[in-house]
């Protein structure tokens, strides 16, 4: 699903300088605790979070996340935005709640991220 489709579905907008709406997200994951997120394969995925600090960006960098979406109209902190620009990752924001955001994305066909193979 392209970011412009995500934006239309959720009435979301870009808050970062990286604002390429043609970026494709393969799957979605929602979490506020970053270690919960890192248990899953987030590569090329959309990370939905209510967490607005630099660590959500670092986590995304490590896991090759394609784009970050803030819910409940939150704005990322200045530090978080600076880091997002540094590593060139798009940051979006929507007024919707996490529940409704995920529901709309899933209903529109965006699949969930799968778990890393654990032993």
């Amino acid at each position, binding site marked *: 699903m392209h970011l412009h489709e995500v934006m239309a579905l959720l009435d979301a907008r870009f808050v970062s300088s990286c*604002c*390429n709406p*043609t*970026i*494709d997200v393969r799957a979605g994951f929602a979490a*506020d*605790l*970053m*270690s*919960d997120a*890192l*248990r*899953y*394969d987030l*590569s090329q995925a959309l990370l939905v*979070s209510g*967490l607005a*600090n*630099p*660590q*959500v960006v*670092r*986590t995304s*960098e*490590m*896991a*090759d996340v394609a784009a970050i979406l803030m819910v409940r109209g939150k704005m990322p902190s200045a*530090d978080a935005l600076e880091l997002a620009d540094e*590593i*060139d990752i798009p940051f979006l924001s929507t007024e919707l709640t996490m529940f409704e955001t995920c529901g709309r994305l899933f209903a529109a066909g965006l699949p*969930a991220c*799968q*778990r*890393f*193979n*654990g*032993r």
Partner: protein
Amino acid sequence: MTPTEVLKAQELVYELKIGDIMTRRLITVSPETTMREVKQVLRDHRISGLPVMRDEHLVGIVSIEDLIRALEANELDAEVNTYMSSLVRTVGEGESAVRALSAFGRAGVGRLPVVDDDGRLVGILTPGDITRGVLRALERAYHEEELRKYRVRHVFEDIASDRTSLILRYDIPVRDFNRAGRASSQLKQTLVRLGIDPRIVRRVAIVSYEAEMNIVIHSTTGGNLVAEINSELIAVLAYDSGPGIEDVKAAMQPGWSTAPDWIREMGFGAGMGLVNIKATADEMHLDSWPRRGTKLEAVIYLKPGEGKTGHETE
């Protein structure tokens, strides 16, 4: 082109400024020029349209289509102002090339006059300029990254020994949440430049980041992160000198955490860090001595078959 390269090309279109790719050599005519002269100018310069200027102000665009209309009406001696389009859409030289692309699509024109911040005509842009600009930028970006990778790989090839390893050491300060993750970020960039498989890079990055965050959150005086890279594996070693883990077995249980609420509010302390490391790495050893410190070593093999690569569905 691979999908990644296509994505890179799309990004470049967004980064490219119109001013960087437009044609600056401006050939213009005045509203009183005849269409016959326009025909000559278009032919001499092998172009398909011209800005029309009066006293340094853009008043219109005359194109080959306008010339055809004049020819059909047998009015080659008519003045440009009777045939030109005077409702001229312009783009700013500081705007992104993508703005111009959508303007071409909407307006159905083959060229757009480019103006500076004061509205003065500074160039002209055609779809061909955008294509050329993207190709040039793509080539530049490709060469820069290839050159970097080439240099790093050669370091390994030019050193003769029975076993060569590259060791990267990082100091991890305690409770510095703004810089937390910097070491893992630098390690990840290095691995990418070494040309290591992106899936392996991602696994090392996750292991290293979880270990780094553990030191940032829990250590008394900070700690160290060391990565050893050789032709077979990448080993990540994280150690600190206290406070140590009281119950190592409990710490390995999913969801077990000693992190205070304020750490959880920052998105950490889910009690999944060590669990994630164990699941992501091929091997993991954790030793801890209460009040003396903790040492964690995780290994990821570079060769397929030796490591874990698949994913399972939840």
